[in-house]
């Protein structure tokens, strides 16, 4: 088959582009992370050894940001998987207008993250003019300033709204590929909707759910735009995640060394997840030589 076909020139451009894209910044980040290097005082550049890491690991900011990062990832994952699975099971049923409903449900995934965040921040969650405030006030409950008092929860809500459609996008075709006869047989055996879900549909969805969880984790580990336009990481550090902390070190304080050390930590964290994702995805290629 391969006789007479030179595959190298076909592959080389992509491989080279990705290799440069990966190795150059990575090497630079690693290098900078071992330097005292501030863009405001570039003359005072010097070797730092592990100083930047020591500074980060002994300070409070990194741990708060790590905690927020894990909390964000964990909560949004839970929300998107639970709601995503529920919506998927719902949209798998036959009912009038099902296709339209499916379009409406997946719509938030195609929104610009900055736009999504601003709609929620201004029009829904604003403590004075927002719809939520109006509802709670009408019910005599008073209002909550989400971004001042529970900024992390507010961000979790926004991101979950954006990414639940992603879960539906992946899970719905997976569920629809489930053998119709199998479902029919279960129903004839007297299985109700709940039993059908627990014993037939959910087990079938576990693998795609794992894929959703891993891909989402990769994205959520470097969640940025939603925080940038809503809370700016605040109040204080309350909604600062690792990505936002690095951004602040880099483009507010211009501290290249410290931002790079933070970057290395982010890369390590992402790689732990990536390791598992690559293994799962690799199984889909088993028929290759």
């Amino acid at each position: 088959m391969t006789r007479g076909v030179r595959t190298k020139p076909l592959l080389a451009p992509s491989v080279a582009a990705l290799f440069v894209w990966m190795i150059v910044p990575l090497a630079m980040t690693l290098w900078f992370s071992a330097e005292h290097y501030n863009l405001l005082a570039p003359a005072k550049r010097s070797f730092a050894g592990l100083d930047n890491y020591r500074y980060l690991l002994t300070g409070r900011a990194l741990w708060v940001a790590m905690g927020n990062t894990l909390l964000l990832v964990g909560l949004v994952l839970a929300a998107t998987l639970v709601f995503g699975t529920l919506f998927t099971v719902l949209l798998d049923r036959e009912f009038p207008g099902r296709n339209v409903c499916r379009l409406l449900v997946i719509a938030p995934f195609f929104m610009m993250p900055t736009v999504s965040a601003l709609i929620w921040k201004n029009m829904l969650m604003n403590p004075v003019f927002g719809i939520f405030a109006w509802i709670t006030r009408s019910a005599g409950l008073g209002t909550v300033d989400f971004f001042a008092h529970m900024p992390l929860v507010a961000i979790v809500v926004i991101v979950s709204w954006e990414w639940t459609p992603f879960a539906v996008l992946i899970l719905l075709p997976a569920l629809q590929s489930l053998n119709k006869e199998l479902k029919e047989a279960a129903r004839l055996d007297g299985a109700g909707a709940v039993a059908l879900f627990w014993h037939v549909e959910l087990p079938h969805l576990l693998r795609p759910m794992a894929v959703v969880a891993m891909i989402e984790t990769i994205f959520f580990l470097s969640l940025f735009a939603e925080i940038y336009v809503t809370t700016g990481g605040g109040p204080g550090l309350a909604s600062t995640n690792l990505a936002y902390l690095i951004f602040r070190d880099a483009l507010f304080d211009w501290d290249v060394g410290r931002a790079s050390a933070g970057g290395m930590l982010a890369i390590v964290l992402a790689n732990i997840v990536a390791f598992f994702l690559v293994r799962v995805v690799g199984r889909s290629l088993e028929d290759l030589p």
Partner: protein
Amino acid sequence: MKTTWRSRLMPTLAGWTVALAMFFPIFWMFLTGFKTEITAVATPPAAIFRPTLENYSAVLQRADYVQFAINSVVVALGSTLVALMLAVPAAYSMAFFPTRRTRDILLWMLSTKMLPAVGVLVPIYLLWRNFGLLDTRVGLVLIDSISVLPIVVWMLFSFFREVPSQILEASRMDGATQGQELMHVLLPLSMPGIAATALLSIILCWNEAFWSLNLTTVKAATLTAFTASFSNPEGLFWAKLSAASTLAIAPILVFGWISQRQLVRGLSFGAVK
């Protein structure tokens, strides 16, 4: 008969409730775009009002809005084009002439996607500054095309593998060169797949926020950066923000709806078919 009617009512109600609730924020934004700035912040929120087009005309008359829109179009299309030009030969080679290393190359490409952008923010910023690429469309196209490249390769690869290789072999028997085979046989055959791949790439580049927020300021800023600028003053420009946002998301929403079924394989790296 009665049971069927009953058993249908529940899913219908539940399905529509969920769909309308999920879509409500977008619908509300769309509505707000047609309000005056005063009605936009009215309490109780106004559902019935006299619609106005003044926000749209105000937004479109701002020279900078048009500039941002053009930047978004150029960056999304440019990045997609560059990514496709790199990816088509690579995917072709791996789909039809797999070697022992193909699997590793594919997985390695996927793994580059997992490098968190923020981890390389500093070096990219400094490199772009030194090469004069900060706040240029070329700089953004460069970075966007490389960051969608793995997804594009994967998606094309999975589409190409569905093309029967006998067809390609037949054209080779007829004396077609590799380039002719690619251009005149494979590309026309897999056009729907290539189109879906291009759409996904356009969607991802259009909505890309991290690099456009950090690497552009004025000249090359895209609509994501433009809409983000509404967050700064607690200003009461919700109606204009809504009109501008509706314009910014409408084309992408339509693209997403059109290609939803094919997007799945790109988004899941073929792990779910």
